[in-house]
């Protein structure tokens, strides 16, 4: 999944001369919390609702007036993403730098924006949780052919896989979380158990044999 599949295209932007007051009003009106600051088609900064509130707080040492310009308080340079970035890379950037949003730049033009909420939406799509399905959690040996063997078993039973997530565990084992379109999740889980995989979810599955 790439950034361009989850980003909001053509985000609302402001100029460095926009006042704090206008920027705040715009956020309220549009229900957003991040505004990229653009000058001559180039991204020059970003302001968040938090930046605005901190800058104008009476608790600040030298609070800004509402008619101050955003260029005085914006963050820059701005961390950005590219439309072709895999979402996991962008997620990593956001977590490591502790930021809640990334403007998306293509050839120095702002073409979109992604926020942490978009990453959660992406997570829902990746896990297939929005499609009618049952859930399986399986542990298997981390070696070639195991996943193929499981996929074959599902295919033989005409069970469609809506999503499949896999991640490594310690000691040569891999975990697999699948969403599959079957009403007969327990029967299927028992068959998976019979085939030599360890079924962790649904709980208490015993092999048929």
């Amino acid at each position, binding site marked *: 999944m790439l950034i361009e599949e989850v980003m909001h295209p053509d985000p609302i932007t402001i100029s460095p001369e926009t006042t704090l007051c206008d920027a705040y009003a715009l956020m309220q009106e549009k229900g957003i919390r991040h505004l990229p600051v653009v000058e001559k088609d180039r991204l020059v900064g970003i302001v968040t609702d938090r930046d605005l509130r901190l800058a104008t707080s009476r608790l600040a040492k030298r609070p800004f007036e509402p008619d101050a310009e955003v260029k005085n308080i914006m963050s820059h340079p701005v961390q950005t993403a590219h439309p072709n970035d895999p979402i996991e890379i962008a997620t990593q950037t956001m977590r490591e730098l502790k930021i809640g949003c990334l403007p998306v730049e293509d050839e120095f033009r702002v073409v979109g924006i992604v926020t942490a909420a978009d990453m959660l939406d992406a997570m829902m799509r990746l896990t297939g949780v929005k499609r*009618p399905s049952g859930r*399986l959690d399986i542990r298997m040996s981390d070696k070639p052919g195991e996943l193929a063997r499981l996929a074959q078993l599902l295919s033989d039973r005409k069970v*469609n896989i809506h999503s499949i997530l896999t991640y490594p565990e310690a000691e040569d084992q891999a975990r697999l979380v699948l969403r599959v*379109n079957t*009403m*007969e999740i*327990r*029967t299927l889980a028992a068959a998976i158990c019979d085939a030599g995989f360890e079924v962790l979810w649904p709980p208490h599955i015993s092999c048929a044999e």
Partner: protein
Amino acid sequence: MAASYLMCRVIYHPKYQAYDLGPEHPFSPLRVAMLLDLLHTYEVQVDFLEPLAATQEMLLEIHDPQYIQIIQEASAGKKIAHAEHYGLGTADNPIKEGMAEGALFQVGGTVLGAKLLMEDQTKKVLQLGGGFHHAHPGLAAGFCLYNDLALAIKKFTKFGWHVAYLDIDVHHGDGVQEMFYSNDKVMTISLHESGEYLFPGTGWIHELGRGMGRALKLNIPLEPFTEGTSYLKVVEGVVEPALSWFRPDVLVVQAGADAHFSDPLADLLLTTYDYERLFHKIIEMADQSCKGRILFTLGGGYAMAATVRIWAILYYVLHGWELPDRLPAEWRQRWQKKIGKPLPEYLHDRLPAYDPIPRKEEIERANRQLIQRIMDSVAADWL
């Protein structure tokens, strides 16, 4: 008042049997064949009204035109490209010739039930089919093709009625909920085993409806291994106040029997006694909240021996008859041979029906908290 007005009207058509997804498929038409034969063997009154098949025009009220066409073609034996895009050709929804016709008659049955109620011909309808709560506008799912329930509910709302939909099938009634998610004339209530692993994986308590439909969609995801007593407390704690607050004009009930303890597809632990109490309770709630107007459909239920008994109990309860004790020996012999499984001697389960549940207290506590959480989350809207 004519006697038939007070009596429960039963709907069925032999063509229902054509909705047959194959001998290995759990959604077997034999369940209703066994039920009818059981009623005949008991020599009780069995006269049903035969519906017409649902028309294309009716289906269009609920389903996408493209989807309707694909199902007709698949059912006529035509090869379908991208069948899986429509949820077809899977283990749950295999393509079988003639399946559309069977489904159309069953949809027609639920529609006829709605018509009888709107024309005030009766107060209680039992439709011996339908209940396809997993069908979506353009997607077959969970053994369902066309959503008969949604269609009947839509007919009622067009008639100007407020409708309460109660889904006691063990699976979440996702298709029906979704189609009325922002509708303020329809309350949907689904009691089901939690979707933590069970299909369709939805039906969480935060799903409360959108916009005008807010706080009108209730979900009661029960802990696996929930027993009857705990189940009925939840009905009293959530369903009863919901219906008395909403005051619908009619109650539509999807009476799937797959919450029975012996059901192979899920893990709730209702016994036939719990079902009998539940059916009485539902009728009582309809009497109190909507002048007794009620439309029952069937639904899931995959332990054949249990499903048939539960629906027989429903039939008796709706007619106000005393339940027979034993299952007729000749009926048992006849069907044991056909289904290759033993059938019990009695209509009701023998108690205790299963071994004690080690987590019983924990489960009951979780379900009590569930009642509280649901009621808290709608309190502000139910003024």
